[in-house]
């Protein structure tokens, strides 16, 4: 487990680089943290550092957005937001299994704690805590 502090978007951007460098064979990133913690902001920073030019917008409404990616063997970035789910759903109900099983997909899930039975293998967990105005603690495990 590692802990980081970010005081602004520049530091979040640096952290995104570090996360990418440490990804190894992990393709599933679970993000948790309250409203306004900066989950989408971190996904944006990761996507930008992976070379995605498109604006990463909130997937809250549509649940899931897919972006083309060209990074090592990864061909798409799948951005999922479980904010609207009530916590009863599992992966099968949501049709997410195919994305997670796809070796060319990097899958980032916000509010991942609302999904039952996320596979633990190759899973990177990121928890963001709000410490104060703009100050965030990011716990990676």
């Amino acid at each position, binding site marked *: 487990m590692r802990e980081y502090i970010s005081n602004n978007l520049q530091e979040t951007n640096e952290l995104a680089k570090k996360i990418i460098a440490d990804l190894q064979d992990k393709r599933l990133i679970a993000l948790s943290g309250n*409203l*306004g913690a*900066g989950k*989408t*902001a971190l996904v*944006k920073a990761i996507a930008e550092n992976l070379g995605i030019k498109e*604006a990463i*917008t*909130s997937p*809250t*409404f*549509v*649940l*899931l*957005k897919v972006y083309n990616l060209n990074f090592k063997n990864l061909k798409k970035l799948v951005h999922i937001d479980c*904010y*609207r*789910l*009530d916590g009863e*759903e599992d992966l099968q*109900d*949501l*049709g997410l299994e195919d994305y997670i099983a796809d070796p060319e997909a990097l899958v980032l899930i916000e509010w991942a704690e609302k999904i039952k039975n996320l596979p633990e293998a190759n899973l990177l967990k990121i928890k963001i805590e*709000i410490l*104060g*105005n703009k100050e965030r603690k990011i716990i990676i495990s």
Partner: protein
Amino acid sequence: MRILALESSCDETALAIISGSGSDWVLEKDIVYSQIAIHQKYGGVVPEVAARKHAETIFPLLTETLGEEKLATIDYLAVTAGPGLVASLLLGVTAARSLAYAAAKPLLPVNHMEGHIYSNWLSNSELKNNDQKYFPSLALVVSGGHTELVLMKNHGDYQLLGTTQDDAVGEAFDKVAKILNLGYPGGPIVSKEALEGDDQAYKLPRPMLNSGDYNFSFSGLKTAVLYTLEREKNISQAAVKNICASFQAAAVELLVKKTIKAAQEFQVKSIMIAGGVSANQLLREELKKESTKISLPLFYPELKYTGDNAAMIAVAAYYGLQNKNKKILKGEEIFSAKPLSNWQIFLK
């Protein structure tokens, strides 16, 4: 020409029939089944619940809409193919495909955002009778899933000028309501609280107001509300009203200023608003005030057409057929209709 339209892109299952020729058309049927009550307990739309509900309601609604005649006197079918929740869209598209193929009727996939813009034709007879006078028009489409400024050059001819870079404005309203523990859907609740609040009580940011483009950002505004709340531990009811008023004023200012600026730059002949957030009274008033200053007419839909409905899809299909700007699928082609969850309005 008679068109049956289906809409199921989010949490409303809706059907409508329009008939007419030229600019003379009438809406014959207009049925909307809303799932808001079901989603209220979850604090938002639950995609899988929404899709299951569409499956349960679409056939009884079809029976009710079509009656004894079934599809005999229908010439075309139209269906919302996107953007929206993929599971919800799939239900409507599958139903429309099956009906069209079985009854050998042509099928038109319609863009949901285009449909919202056409809700203005449902509600404004002056626009309906003299629409060429009002092109090019600038449309601000605002809802829980979208915040877009669209230049409508003519029927079926769109240019996307700007869009949100993070949260949609309606989503920001919903999340602010959640942060303040006010319930769902957030828009009407926040607006109601705001009525009795002081919009100057809190200094909230106007993200991207001077960004020099027509894009929007609402995520930072939402977070600013969160910080405000954390600074004041025990928040009074009066303070909640003040926060709502301050938040709404900031959101509306962002929308109005960028809309007016775009209207001037692109020298449009009218402004239209559409989508769930176009029901917001402050947005209507402010935009009316500012558009009057630059002598532009403002059109907005009746409240019942601000939310999702099939009537707007039927109207969009009608003008698409009139102006020959839509894909018309026949025979086996009908099965090429697919849900397109990110379908951009300017793409055919």
